């Protein structure tokens, strides 16, 4: 913006204008208009000053202050909410950590009690099975003994009969049994 520099040119043209020589000169220098200009400038400026200071500017100021206050309020509110949010966040984090600790402790306790129960259960189970096994063994032995007993009876019968058929010798059943038992023991 180099304006007044080149505005000096029209100013020069102006001042050398032939009209200036013929007429009274610059209209600005016509002193007969000064009183009117000064008077009306005074009237208008006073009116403007009064209107502005009494009427318009306080209203603008009021609006601006209201907006400023509103903005300040909003910001304050936002800040408050933000602080609350931050507080809630830290509380949440704290309680989260606490909850995690509690959970870990509970899990450890549960594990401990569980493992106790398990070993107990295992011991009982082992005991039980041992007892049952023993009982079963006993039963088997008994059954075996019974079976053996009845087998020797049958064998004695068969032996007596065989002796009678082969040698036609009548033998005492008790003797037969005795012989069978002896044979079984040796065989």
């Amino acid at each position: 913006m180099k304006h007044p520099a080149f505005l000096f040119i029209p100013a020069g043209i102006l001042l050398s204008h032939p009209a200036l020589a013929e007429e009274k000169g610059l209209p600005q220098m016509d002193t007969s208009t000064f009183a009117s200009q000064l008077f009306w400038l005074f009237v208008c400026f006073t009116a403007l000053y009064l209107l502005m200071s009494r009427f318009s500017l306080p209203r603008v100021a009021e609006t601006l202050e209201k907006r400023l206050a509103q903005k300040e309020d909003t910001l304050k509110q936002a800040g408050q909410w933000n602080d609350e949010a931050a507080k809630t966040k830290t509380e949440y984090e704290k309680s989260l950590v606490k909850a995690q600790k509690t959970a870990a402790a509970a899990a450890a306790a549960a594990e401990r009690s569980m493992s106790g129960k398990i070993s107990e259960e295992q011991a009982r189970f082992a005991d039980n099975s041992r007892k049952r096994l023993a009982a079963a063994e006993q039963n088997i032995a008994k059954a075996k003994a019974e079976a053996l007993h009845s087998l020797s009876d049958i064998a004695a019968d068969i032996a007596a009969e065989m002796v009678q058929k082969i040698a036609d010798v009548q033998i005492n059943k008790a003797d037969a049994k005795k012989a069978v038992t002896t044979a079984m023991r040796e065989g």
Partner: protein
Amino acid sequence: MQSPLEQFVIKPIFPLHLGQYDISFTQSSLWMVVAVVLTTLLMTLSVRGRALVPGRWQNIAEMLYEVVFGLTREYLHEEGRKYFPFVFSLFMIVLMGNLLGLIPYSFTYTSHIIVTGALALFVFGMATLVGIWKHKLHFFSLFLPSGLPMLMIPLIIPIEIISYLSRPLSLSVRLCANMMMGHTMLKLIAAFCASLVFLSVGLKLVGIIPFVVNTALMGLELLIAFIQAYVFAILTCIYLRDAIELH
């Protein structure tokens, strides 16, 4: 060609006399009244709704308010509140004068040295009175820079006084010259444009060039109108500050 100075001639609308003085209502007075009315309308109607979210006109009004308010606060600090309506009125009357003058066939009252001179002298006188009222005789130390050799004092004091007195003159001449030169330029180029209309078709196209120049110049003049009003407001604040603070 009509003289480009024709636009600055003051023409009475209806004659009026007060004692021996001719205070006719002229087209200059008319535009002053228009300026006052427009300013009042702008600063009142646009903020009538007092909307928290401003519309376009309210925005303009608030922007003007804040520009001037910022100036008074920057230069005069808390003291500025007292002078704000005054500085604002001064700013608006100069700004409106400059802007309204850009309307074709209108009149630029700020192109008259008597108007700008009266405004500047008023500011100057007020600042001086404020200074004297605030600091009494101490105010005149304004003309005596500190740390000066004794021999220089009789030389410096008149120079400082001349410098002080020359401020309103410089201010008013500058505003008036800016307005006058700008408007004369616009007028000259516009007249040149118009005169080309009577030429042949080929040359008529050449008329576009000054038209474009004039349009650009118009934008420039709008800017200058604002800057000059701003400068006037700044210098008012500076005179007041110097008077209040005495450096």
